């Protein structure tokens, strides 16, 4: 049995790692909630495994999403992940040549060059099987080392990678990353020294070997090098479960579970823990997070997830996120940072028990209508939007009623964002009762924050929930209202909850296209900047919000448009306070450009239905 | 020029620079008036001495200064004036500028606040001198752990005889509250007010700074009475009007923001010359908008707080405008006589 004492650190470390992973994974899977376990069962059978495996290959190995975000960063991670896998697979194949048919101990392929000294057969090297493998193994090792060089450069000069900030590492991370960085150079040294003695290396290791042999006592050095290589591997495996590299195995598990349809719920559960452990703290999310503008970098997602993982989240960190979703867009692992943040807030605020018994007596006048318009709490603080919508609705001839004309019951989303689900449920139930009673078929709201909760949390059978940008477009396209366009230039700001939150990017733009000439903003659609006024953030003070707002305005007004258009009362009010430029809601632009619709046109529109 | 305070000094310098012969009469031995007592000025808490030195240094040598003289009478003699003081000193002038300033309300008149009766009840002026002396201690020498400021003492108070608002005590209270916290960071500070009249530039910022940085608490409720308990603490009874409930609170030290009053000399001279407003007893200008510095009597002018409460900046501006008015008066009168 080929064995040498130096394999112990590697082998012990590997066994330890596998044991920890086994315990941790079974614990997670066992504590999945009922629906989670059901989905797991179905998932395994209904063929979801294949797209999941494909995603594991494309993401965990090739890091396709990160590649799209940042080419150098993508290549570096791919070189490590994909490179290392190749090394293991090809190493095993190579070891088959020399194992003579019987099973090799698992460490054998890793340290093959120690056990087998197959001399190079020079001119025809490549055509022989061993020669081919020698070449391939050296090539893959070189591929990984190139990634390592990039990693070292990034650590020193992250700016060259286009990253303003890199993650500050915790002490476990430091141990793990150093050991990781030593693994492949030590392998190179070990194989080169051995090649120096037995000339068994590939193009890289052999040349290095003969080079070292010239001035170093390679025969004495190669054995300690193998020891160092094995120890580096061992240390890496032992520290992995507590370091950011736990993300390697956990992400694979996450991808499968996600494909089976499991999502982070309203309360912290084992799946949200899996997501937290899947965060490699690569730092891509830190740069896009606008919390940096407010000098609150410690509550950017990478650091918050780390604090959750090590059980040390402080209130400020938890409460300090606008839940704008920019990080979720760029996260290579697509971790649902928002759901985890809200679940953590549930834990933080679960003692509180808001109760709205007083709403039971609230019965507005009966407002039977086809279209129900809901301005929302914030809508009442931007009367121009309300006025515009009422003018348009009147002009459209639709049978509408203004649901929260004299005071509204809040839609419940701000409570949800603070993790107070039971309280939000009370409001949701009351509003649902009011909407159903009105008998309306279409429910239109001006506020994206309301739209998202009405759309996702409310059960409104037979009622179509629309944001007013969608509804106005429909009115124009159906001819119920006519608008004319002007030459004025405008920039459209995607409100977080409408764009990223509800994936409505195009309808507002199509509508605006018929009204104004639309300039593009440097950051828009998925990367749109948050206005800073978000109700998602619980503890930021006014001056910090102002900094975020001003940074966003700089980007939005770069092309000096005549007007800045948005589709959310909160964004409008926040921007309005910070600029001399004209800030308008999309409804206001429509109402300004309304043209009288002749009777005939109305009838044809009616017929067109 | 009767009165060598801020207005007197500034008007004298202005007139002297216009080439007029100026006689400045000051009742105390030194010029400067109340500024001598102000350790730091609002809103930026610059040292009072800076303004004092600036005003004094501007005073040119030609101005004939007579200090230590209390003017007792102003007589009109064929269109000219004769000013006489208690010790028989006399001076003649073609024009007289009254810059007699103000006096602080006598806090002991508000008996129920206990000034002069309880050990640790002081006025804003007393506190300012404590700042100048560099230490704030109670009568027993210890440092107070909680200080209360009472606004509108002797202002906006018919019983105390002054219906008007003295304008500058609110901002002074906030400034002094901040200074107390700088002297004694551990000391709790409360202000009991009816309205926070922070009328001037940067005053509201000072108010916000007091709230934000120094944790000064503002309770809307005018002090009704204060008494001393067996430990020497002063028990205040106010109503927290915003909660609609009476409130009792003990403080170690009580600072009374005394208002501005027309001083005796202004009342005496004003009533003799028939220029006194009977409700607030400050002097009555010919026209409070168009010619605030001019009196009904030709050649007699006013400047500074003798026509009503003002902060230092407004006082100096008023003094300069009086100088111009006087220059104008001589201008069209020189061809007359």
């Amino acid at each position, binding site marked *: 049995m080929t064995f040498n004492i130096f394999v112990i650190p590697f082998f012990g470390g590997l066994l330890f790692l596998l044991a920890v992973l086994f315990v941790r994974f079974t614990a997670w899977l066992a504590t999945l909630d009922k629906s989670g376990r059901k989905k797991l069962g179905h998932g395994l059978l209904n063929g979801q495994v294949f797209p999941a495996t494909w995603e594991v290959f494309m993401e965990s190995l090739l890091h396709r999403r990160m590649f799209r975000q940042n080419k150098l960063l993508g290549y570096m991670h791919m070189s490590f992940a994909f490179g290392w896998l190749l090394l293991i697979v090809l190493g095993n194949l190579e070891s088959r040549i020399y194992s003579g048919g019987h099973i090799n101990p698992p460490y054998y392929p890793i340290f093959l060059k120690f056990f087998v000294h197959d001399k190079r057969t020079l001119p025809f090297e490549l055509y022989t099987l061993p020669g081919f493998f020698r070449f391939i193994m050296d090539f893959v090792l070189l591929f990984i080392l190139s990634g390592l060089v990039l990693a070292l450069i990034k650590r020193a000069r992250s700016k060259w990678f286009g990253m303003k900030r890199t993650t500050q590492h915790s002490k476990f991370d430091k141990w793990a990353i150093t050991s990781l960085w030593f693994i492949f150079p030590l392998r190179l040294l070990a194989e080169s020294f051995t090649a120096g003695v037995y000339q068994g290396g590939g193009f890289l290791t052999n040349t290095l070997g003969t080079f070292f042999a010239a001035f170093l006592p390679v025969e004495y050095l190669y054995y300690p090098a193998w020891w160092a290589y094995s120890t580096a591997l061992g240390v890496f495996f032992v520290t992995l479960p507590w370091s950011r590299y736990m993300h390697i195995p956990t992400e694979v598990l996450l991808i499968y579970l996600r494909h089976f349809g499991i999502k982070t719920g309203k309360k912290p559960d084992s799946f949200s823990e899996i997501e937290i452990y899947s965060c490699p703290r690569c730092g891509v999310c830190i740069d896009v997070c606008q919390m940096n503008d407010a000098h609150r970098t410690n509550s950017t997602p990478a650091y918050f997830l780390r604090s959750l993982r090590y059980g040390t989240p402080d209130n400020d960190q938890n409460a300090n996120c606008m839940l704008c979703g920019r990080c979720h867009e760029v996260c290579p692992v697509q971790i649902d940072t928002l759901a985890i943040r809200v679940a953590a807030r549930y834990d933080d*605020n679960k*003692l509180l028990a808001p*109760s709205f018994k007083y709403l039971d007596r609230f019965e507005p006048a009966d407002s039977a209508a086809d279209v129900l318009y809901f301005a929302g709490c914030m809508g009442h603080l931007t009367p121009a939007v309300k006025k515009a919508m009422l003018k348009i609705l009147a002009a459209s001839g639709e049978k509408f009623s203004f649901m929260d004309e004299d005071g509204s019951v*809040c839609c*419940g989303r701000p409570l949800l964002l603070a993790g107070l689900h039971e309280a939000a449920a009370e409001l949701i139930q009351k509003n649902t009762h009011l909407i159903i009673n009105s008998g309306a078929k279409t429910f239109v709201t001006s506020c994206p924050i309301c739209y998202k909760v009405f759309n996702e949390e409310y059960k409104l059978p037979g009622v179509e929930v629309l944001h007013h940008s969608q509804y106005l477009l429909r009115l124009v396209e159906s001819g119920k209202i006519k608008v004319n366009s002007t030459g004025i230039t405008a920039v459209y700001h995607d409100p977080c909850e409408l764009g990223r939150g509800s994936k409505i990017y195009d309808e507002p733009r199509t509508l605006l296209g018929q009204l104004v000439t639309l300039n593009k903003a440097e950051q828009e659609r998925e990367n749109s900047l948050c206005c800073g006024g978000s109700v998602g953030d619980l503890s930021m003070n006014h001056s910090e919000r102002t900094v975020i707002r001003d940074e966003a305005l700089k980007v939005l007004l770069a092309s000096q448009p005549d007007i800045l258009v948005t589709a959310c009362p909160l964004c409008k009010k926040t921007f309005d306070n910070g600029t001399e430029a004209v800030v308008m809601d999309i409804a206001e632009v429509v109402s300004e450009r309304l043209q009288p619709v002749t009777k005939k046109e109305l009838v044809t529109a009616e017929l067109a239905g | 020029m009767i009165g060598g305070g801020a207005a007197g000094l500034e008007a004298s310098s202005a007139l002297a620079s216009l080439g007029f012969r100026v006689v400045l009469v000051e009742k105390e031995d030194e010029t400067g008036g109340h500024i001598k007592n102000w350790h730091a000025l609002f809103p930026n808490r610059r040292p009072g001495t800076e303004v004092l030195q600036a005003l004094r240094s501007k005073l040119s040598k030609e101005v004939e200064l007579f200090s230590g003289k209390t003017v007792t009478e102003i007589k009109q003699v064929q269109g000219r004036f004769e000013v006489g003081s208690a010790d028989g000193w006399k001076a003649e002038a073609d024009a007289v500028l009254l810059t007699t300033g103000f006096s602080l309300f006598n806090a002991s008149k508000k008996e129920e606040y206990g000034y002069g009766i309880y050990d640790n009840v002081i006025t804003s002026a007393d506190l300012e001198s404590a700042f100048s002396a560099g230490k704030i201690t109670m009568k027993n020498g210890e440092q107070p752990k909680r200080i209360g400021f009472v606004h509108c003492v002797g202002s906006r108070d018919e019983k105390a005889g002054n219906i008007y608002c003295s304008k500058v005590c609110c901002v002074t209270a906030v400034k002094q509250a901040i200074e107390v916290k700088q002297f004694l960071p551990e000391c709790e500070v409360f202000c009991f007010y009816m309205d926070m009249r922070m009328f001037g530039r940067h005053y509201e910022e000072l108010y916000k700074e007091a709230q934000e940085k120094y944790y000064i608490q503002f309770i809307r409720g005018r002090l009704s009475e204060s008494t001393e308990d067996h430990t020497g603490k002063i028990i205040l009874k106010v109503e927290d009007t915003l909660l609609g409930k009476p*409130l009792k*609170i003990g403080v170690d030290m009580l600072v009374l923001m005394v208002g501005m009053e027309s001083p005796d000399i202004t009342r005496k001279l004003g009533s003799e010359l028939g220029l006194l407003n009977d409700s607030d007893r400050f002097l009555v200008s010919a026209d409070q908008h168009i010619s605030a510095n001019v009196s009904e009597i030709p050649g007699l002018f006013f400047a500074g707080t003798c026509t009503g409460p003002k902060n230092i900046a407004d006082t100096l501006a008023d003094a300069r405008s009086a100088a111009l008015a006087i220059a104008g008066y001589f201008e069209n009168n020189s061809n007359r006589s």
Partner: protein
Amino acid sequence: MAGTVEKVRFGFSVNKDRQIDYDANLKDIADIVLKAEPTINLCISCGTCASTCTAGQFTDFSLRKMILLVRRGETKGLENEISKCMLCGKCQLACPRGVSTRNLILQIHKALKTGAL
């Protein structure tokens, strides 16, 4: 030498004092809230929050009064008062002094729950 007379029934009792005894009131809740949300100090009791309040439409809930009650240590019955807030955020948008009203409400509620134990 307590007599054996059974309790005398007077037909009236001592009226409870409406006066806020500031020194006797515990300020623990106020201290917790001040540390957690220092902008409470910026409040000038102008009432804008209370007037625009969504919950204020249906009840007499007033954040202005809430802040004062917390600072005076009058925390009896405050908890079911504060739980009426829907956290909609209108007050935060309207506040002229930039008080972080939503966080303030959460911190008061939390302090009442935890601080009081």
